[in-house]
């Protein structure tokens, strides 16, 4: 395929340190080119090099050709005429990509006035057309709105409108849906695909998610450590991966931890007393008054939720952002008082329990959060971080035993006793999540609440952490409440699942049954929206065969 956009032998150094080495790719009009890799593989750097927006101290060599002209050799002034006009870019974080103090109309119009020499009135006319083009006019989003008045998905549509405003030849989308919920992700991906097709743009789609790329891209390159390890037509490439890294990446994406079928999670445990029992739980937040005389109705974040978790049971809780799952987790941990209903941990209410009862309750339930780095005090050594929950056992164990427990917990998660003397910043993201798990294990809990524990991790690390969770459960008979927006993770690690929407649990049952034969319309929507690698590849296969045959 002859591309109008080509990267040839691109090397990028930052302060002498090589970031990209010999990256080459080519994109044709109307084609979506996928660039896949884990964090730090150089995907975003490739995009920034094409825009000449590399960070300070970066030096690029090689050629980046746009219709035969080398982007790397043009002046900054010429580059300013190119950016936004010939190459448009969509970024990952819609929440921060827009200027909070300017209206969306002003921000979309800016490029039009700059590149197309439009008057303000003409530009505003075009802004309205663009808002309609990206599906915002239907949602009654007018150009006078400010970014904070829009949802994440709507903001990403504004960013797309900005990127396509001057009808560029190339659209670069850097993780455009990573920060969005699956149902919104499906809408945004469909919008990008439709625009690329209709406007005959080329599109460079950057993602860590193999399923997203398989669904979207005509051709794919897989990157690792600044180099492209393998490229080809999507279905054909994934069917015959040859590089060991690509194979490992593929395996990690589909990874399902081996789960030993022990007595702890046989149907027999249904006779056991539940560790956690939730009945008709309600958690509501008051709203600011709408006017002086009328009290606004409170926002009900968790609405009459009931469930039990028995020893050794692994339960998933899935739902999109704002559905109430994190509020539920905070209530379960006793961090917030429920407005109605009851929570009981080993027969005690975690919020009102005091003294020795409170310690027993909190010892039994521990937590692992999404971002372990944020939950560690950066000035404490790992030994102290992990030992923190042991205050719940004060008086029962002495300093020597506490130290032994911390060491044992670290060994349990695959770290060593020597790591106790280190600080959190000395560890990688995956290791930090192991430390967070060690901290949860140190009181020998019966239930671990894990709130998006693998969402911030790369797929290969995610596979390892999921294995660790499965392994710990097999060895200690731990029960889990696994909170996640990622259906594939929940499917891999849980026996039972609850689907939450608008504060209510709308569907529950065995995980395989709920995901394979969803009954509630919302679950169906959720399952349909989640990209699945195998199905996407099968669809690609059909397209590619039709193309060649």
């Amino acid at each position, binding site marked *: 395929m002859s591309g109008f956009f080509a990267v040839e032998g691109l090397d990028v150094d930052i302060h002498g340190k090589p970031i990209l080495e010999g990256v080459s790719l080519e994109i044709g009009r109307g084609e979506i080119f996928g660039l896949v890799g884990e964090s730090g593989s150089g995907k975003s750097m490739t995009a920034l090099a094409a*825009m000449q*927006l590399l960070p300070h101290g970066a030096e690029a060599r090689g050629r980046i050709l746009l219709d035969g002209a080398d982007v790397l050799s043009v002046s*900054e*002034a010429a580059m*300013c*005429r*190119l*950016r*936004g*006009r010939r190459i*448009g*870019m969509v*970024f990952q*974080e819609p929440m*921060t*990509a*827009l*200027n*909070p*103090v*300017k*209206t969306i109309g002003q*921000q979309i119009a*800016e*490029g039009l006035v*700059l*590149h197309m020499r439009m008057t303000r009135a003409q530009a505003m006319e075009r802004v309205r057309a663009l808002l309609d083009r990206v599906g915002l006019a239907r949602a009654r989003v007018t150009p006078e709105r*400010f970014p*904070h008045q829009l949802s994440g998905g709507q903001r990403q549509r504004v*960013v797309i409108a*900005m*990127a396509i405003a001057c009808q560029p030849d190339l659209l670069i989308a850097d993780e455009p849906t990573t920060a969005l919920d699956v149902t919104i992700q499906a809408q945004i991906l469909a919008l990008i695909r439709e625009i690329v097709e209709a406007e005959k743009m080329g599109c460079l789609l950057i993602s860590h998610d193999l399923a997203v790329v398989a669904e979207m891209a005509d051709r794919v390159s897989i990157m690792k450590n600044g180099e492209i390890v393998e490229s080809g037509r999507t279905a054909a490439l994934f069917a015959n991966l040859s590089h060991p890294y690509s194979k490992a990446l593929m395996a990690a994406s589909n990874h399902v931890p081996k789960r030993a079928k022990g007595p702890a999670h046989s149907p027999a445990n249904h006779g056991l007393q539940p560790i956690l029992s939730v009945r008709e739980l309600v958690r509501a937040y008051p709203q*600011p008054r709408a006017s002086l005389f009328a009290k606004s109705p409170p926002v009900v974040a968790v609405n009459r939720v009931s469930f039990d978790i028995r020893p050794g049971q692994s339960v998933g809780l899935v739902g999109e952002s704002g559905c109430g799952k994190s509020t539920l987790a905070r209530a379960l941990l006793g961090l917030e008082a429920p407005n109605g209903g009851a929570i009981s941990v080993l027969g005690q209410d975690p919020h009102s329990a005091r003294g020795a009862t409170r310690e027993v309750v909190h010892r039994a339930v521990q937590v692992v959060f999404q971002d372990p780095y944020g939950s560690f005090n950066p000035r404490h050594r790992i030994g102290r971080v992990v030992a923190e929950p042991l205050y719940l056992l004060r008086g029962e164990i002495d300093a020597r035993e506490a130290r032994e427990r911390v060491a044992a917990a670290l060994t349990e998660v695959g770290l060593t006793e020597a790591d106790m003397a280190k600080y959190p910043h000395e560890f990688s993201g995956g290791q930090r999540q192991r430390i967070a798990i060690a901290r949860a294990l140190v009181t020998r809990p019966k239930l671990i609440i894990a709130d998006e524990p693998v969402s911030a991790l790369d797929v290969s690390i995610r596979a390892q952490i999921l294995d660790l969770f499965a392994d710990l459960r097999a060895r200690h008979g731990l029960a889990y409440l696994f909170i996640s927006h990622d259906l594939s993770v929940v499917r891999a690690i849980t026996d039972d699942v609850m689907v939450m929407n608008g504060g209510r649990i709308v569907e529950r049952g065995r995980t395989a049954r709920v995901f394979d034969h969803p009954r509630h319309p919302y679950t169906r929507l959720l399952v349909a929206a989640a990209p699945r690698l195998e199905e996407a590849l099968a669809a690609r296969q059909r397209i590619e065969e039709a193309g060649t045959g």
Partner: protein
Amino acid sequence: MLVHAAKRFAGLFATLIVATAVVFLVLEVVPGDPAQVMLGINAQDDTLAALRDQLGLDRPAWERYASWVAGFATGDLGTSYTYSVPVADLVAARITVSLPLALLALALSTAIAIPVGVYAASKRGGWQDGGIMALTQVGIAVPNFWFAMLLVFVFAVTLRLVPSGGFPGWEAGLWPALKALLLPAIALALPQAAILARVMRSSLIDALHEDYVRTARAKGLTRRAVLWKHAVRNALIPVLTILGLQFSFLIAGTIIIENVFYLPGLGRLIFQAITQRDLIVVKSVIVLLVACVILVTFLVDLAYALVDPRLRRR
């Protein structure tokens, strides 16, 4: 926006009421007999009695408080003990010096600090940035009255460009009056400008690292256009906070500066009133200064909402 302003205004009014109550309590009720305090321990009994009668001290405290507060509305703030003229007249004469001085200093410090901060941020890490940062460090460290003496020495004594002190009055004409206020305003403004410039610089550097700046660059805006059109307005938000806080420091600063430059302003009035135990003058001037600061805070709050649309709906 209107609701926001109305709410802020109500809050401001409540603050003012609390301030008058505190000033009243501290100066009148707590130290015992104000007449005794004002006249000193060697005062004659009949003088004391006369002053008590003049101050209305035989009336209950809440009644005196009410009439004092009501005085602010009618303009009758009582009569100064030392000057034997109405406090309102004293204050009215002096505020025409102090308020222009403080406002001039505020305008100067903003006019110096914002361009300097923007320039330093745009040259971040360069020698220009380093030089400006060193200068602002000096500006913060050196007290304003020392600046004042330095300015007098250079511009008044050596160069003879401006008077070294005193105030000709506004009736002498706009330019002579402004000339008399120029040096004191500069002396007041410089240390504040140094702080403000540093805040502006660091806040702008933060803003330049935001994602929306990258988005704007991706649209094809030049580095300069992004700085002025996107980053500066966002960077102004923390600068406004400091600006509001600084106004009360400027007002307090006038007390010293007016003494250095021999200006007949509120600062010197309150300074003399305190040394002469003229409590009626002291409490009225304090309330007036409090009102000024509260008003500026209110204006800053409104400016916030102008700069940041996210605050308009509260």
